[in-house]
C-alpha cells in the first residue's frame, strides 16, 4: 500500500513537472510529402506577415528588428478616448516587468497614421516615460496597418464613424513568439488578463531555455 502511494505520488509529481506549453493560434496548413515511400506531414502555422512601418524616431521597423525576441503587440491611437488609456496603463505594467530583457519587446501600432505622425508618437512615448529600446510605437500606411491587424494578428481594426474617436479597434494584447507565431490573445483592458499574459510570457520564454 505504502509503495502504491509513493508510486502514485511520483506519478503525479512527474505529470505536474511536464512543462506547460502555450498553444499555437491561428489557422494552419498541412504539407504532406512522400519521403522514401512514407508519408510525412509538416504543419505550417500562421505567422505574422512581413511588414515595414516607421517607429517613433522616424526609422524603418520590420520583423528583422524583432529577431530573437518574443513580443506583445497592440493597436491603438493617441487620441483614443475610450479603451486606449487603460490598455496603456496595463501595457506599462508589462514594460515595467520586462524592460531590460533583450528577449522581450512591445510593439504598439497606431491605427490613425494621419494624426499619429512620428513626432506625435515620439511625444506620446516621452510622456508615458517609457524606454523605447523595449517598447516601439509604429505608424505607417493605413492600408498596411489594417491589413497586418486583420490578416496577420487576426484582430479587428477599421474606421467606424460610430466608434469613439472614429476608429474601431480591438483591445487585445497579442503574444507572438520568436517564430512569429501567435501564442495568445489577452484583453488589454482587464488587469487579470494581463496578469495571465505575463505568466504566459514567462512560460514562452522558458520554451527557449537551453535551445
Amino acid at each position, binding site marked *: 500500500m505504502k509503495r502504491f502511494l509513493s508510486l502514485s505520488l511520483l506519478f503525479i509529481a512527474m505529470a505536474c513537472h511536464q512543462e506547460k506549453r502555450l498553444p499555437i493560434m491561428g489557422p494552419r496548413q498541412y504539407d504532406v510529402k512522400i519521403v522514401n515511400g512514407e508519408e510525412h506531414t509538416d504543419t505550417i502555422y500562421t505567422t505574422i506577415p512581413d511588414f515595414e512601418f516607421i517607429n517613433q524616431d522616424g526609422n524603418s521597423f520590420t520583423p528583422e528588428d524583432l529577431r530573437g525576441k518574443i513580443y506583445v503587440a497592440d493597436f491603438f491611437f493617441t*487620441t483614443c*478616448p*475610450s*479603451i486606449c*488609456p*487603460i490598455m*496603456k*496603463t496595463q501595457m*506599462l505594467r508589462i514594460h515595467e516587468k520586462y524592460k531590460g530583457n533583450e528577449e522581450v519587446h512591445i510593439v504598439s501600432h497606431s491605427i490613425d497614421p494621419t494624426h499619429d505622425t512620428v513626432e506625435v508618437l515620439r*511625444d*506620446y512615448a*516621452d*510622456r*508615458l*516615460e517609457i524606454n523605447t529600446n523595449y517598447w516601439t510605437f509604429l505608424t505607417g500606411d493605413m492600408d498596411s496597418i489594417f491589413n497586418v491587424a486583420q490578416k496577420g494578428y487576426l484582430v479587428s481594426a477599421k474606421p467606424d464613424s460610430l466608434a*469613439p474617436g472614429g476608429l474601431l479597434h480591438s483591445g487585445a494584447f497579442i503574444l507572438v513568439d520568436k517564430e512569429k507565431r501567435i501564442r495568445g490573445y489577452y484583453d488589454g483592458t482587464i488587469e487579470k488578463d494581463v496578469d495571465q499574459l505575463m505568466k504566459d510570457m514567462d512560460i514562452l520564454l522558458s520554451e527557449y531555455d537551453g535551445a
Partner: protein
Amino acid sequence: MVLRRFYLFLLLSATVLIIAISIPSCQDQKEIKFRKYMSIGKQIYIQRCQHCHGENGQGLGKLYPPLDSSDYLLENRDILACIIRNGQAGEINVNGITYNQVMPANPDLIEDEIAQICTYILNAWSNEAGLLEKEEVLESLGNCQTN
C-alpha cells in the same frame, strides 16, 4: 408588579427606538447631500473619467494630468463644469508639468451629474474642497468660454 415592569421596559424600548430613528434626521442636510454626491459622482467618474485620470486620480505619466492634489483642478473650480461638458484642448500646466492631450466632451451629462462629478473629484483622495452644488454648475456653464 410584573405588568408594571413590562410597561417600563416597553417605554424604555420605545424611547431608544425614537432616538435611534431621529439621529440621522438630526444630521446636517448638507452632509447627506454631500455623501450622495460623492457616491453618485464616483460611479460617473468610473465610467467617464477613470480611464485616463486613474482610479486614484493619479493620471498617467505626462500624458493625462492627475486630479489628486492637482493645483489646476483646485484653482479652476469655476470652470470645471465647462471642461467636463465641453472637453478641453491645448496645453495646460498641472503641478509644474505641461500636459497637452485632448479631453473629450460629455454633452449628455445633465447639470446634477456634473455637480456630482465635480464634488467627487474635489473631495476624493487627498482633495478636500467641499460640496459643489448644481447652482454653481449652472453659473459656470453660463460663463463658458467657447474654444
